[in-house]
């Protein structure tokens, strides 16, 4: 038993009261690598997601209206509370006016990537950009 414990100490790298071992160091390295990979793969990707080519506008849970994004146009949408103005400009879309109090949808700014969503909840209007179907990756899948 005494021999075993002396063998065990030879694999301890940092001999503090915490005793960080070789396997711990490996796990910490792998975990930080996983973090970096996730950041580079999910958060800081701009071009790999593809371009959005149409916008879906949903009003009060009705079937969404679909508009292509390759145009310059200002749509006026009658929602629950009043008039929402939605601007479409060459691959981007945004709210430019909304009757609600918080104006979250207007401050959200331009939407350009597929699956980006902006919504005015009081007015019950939401816009979602959609890319072509082949820009979905294996994880996202089709909905």
């Amino acid at each position, binding site marked *: 038993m005494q021999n*075993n414990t002396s*063998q*065990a100490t*030879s*694999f301890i790298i940092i001999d503090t*009261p*915490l*005793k*960080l*071992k*070789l*396997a*711990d160091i*490996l*796990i*910490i390295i792998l*975990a*930080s690598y*996983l*973090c970096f990979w*996730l*950041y580079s793969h*999910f*958060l800081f990707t701009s071009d790999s997601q593809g371009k959005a080519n149409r916008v879906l506008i949903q009003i009060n849970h009705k079937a969404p209206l679909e508009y292509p994004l390759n145009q310059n146009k200002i749509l006026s949408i009658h929602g629950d509370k009043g008039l929402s103005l939605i601007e479409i400009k060459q691959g981007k879309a945004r709210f430019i006016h909304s009757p609600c109090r918080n104006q979250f949808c207007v401050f959200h700014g331009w939407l350009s990537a597929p*699956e*980006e*969503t902006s919504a005015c909840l009081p007015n019950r209007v939401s816009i979602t950009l959609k890319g072509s179907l082949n820009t*979905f990756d294996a*994880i*996202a899948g089709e*909905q």
Partner: protein
Amino acid sequence: MKQQFISTQEDHKIALLAALAITIHIFESAIPSPLPGIKPGLANVVTLFAFIQYGWQSALQISLLRVIISSLLLGTFLSPTFLLSLSGALLSLFAITLVQLPFYLHWPQKVLKLLSLSSTPTNQQAYQPSAIGYAIIASISHMAGQFFMAWYFFIPHPGLFKLLPILITFAVILGIVSGIITQFLINQYQQSSDL
């Protein structure tokens, strides 16, 4: 016919640790979190302690008891919160058991023997990660289990994946913290049991 139930020392241990885990879980649910899904996970310290000291069977009993009883007490039994908690607990336990498996099968010793580096048999504790390593794996897999449960059943929107890196980063940090706590607990326990 009179039925007799004889409780063993092992049952007492599990009941004690499960009660401790439930208490911590309920206290922890009162702490507000900055982001949905981020929790200190201090209740997993108890599960991890049981896993390292008594093996995965005891840890499984304790974590199942903790999830079910604390959800009954908090009033979230069979709700989405309960399902997320259960999937996270089961996946984290599965992951750490999977990590421990090679050490129980003496794979490091066999590899070293093949490379003729070491021929003296050592105990399996020598190569195993400490509580910190297990805690990191447990918290990452707990978060991953919860996340995929949430994504698959409740919010199937690809935008949810933008939250995944942040959640996993917090899981690693909080896993290290809970691992340090567990290691201190185990050191204390082993010192006190040596006496």
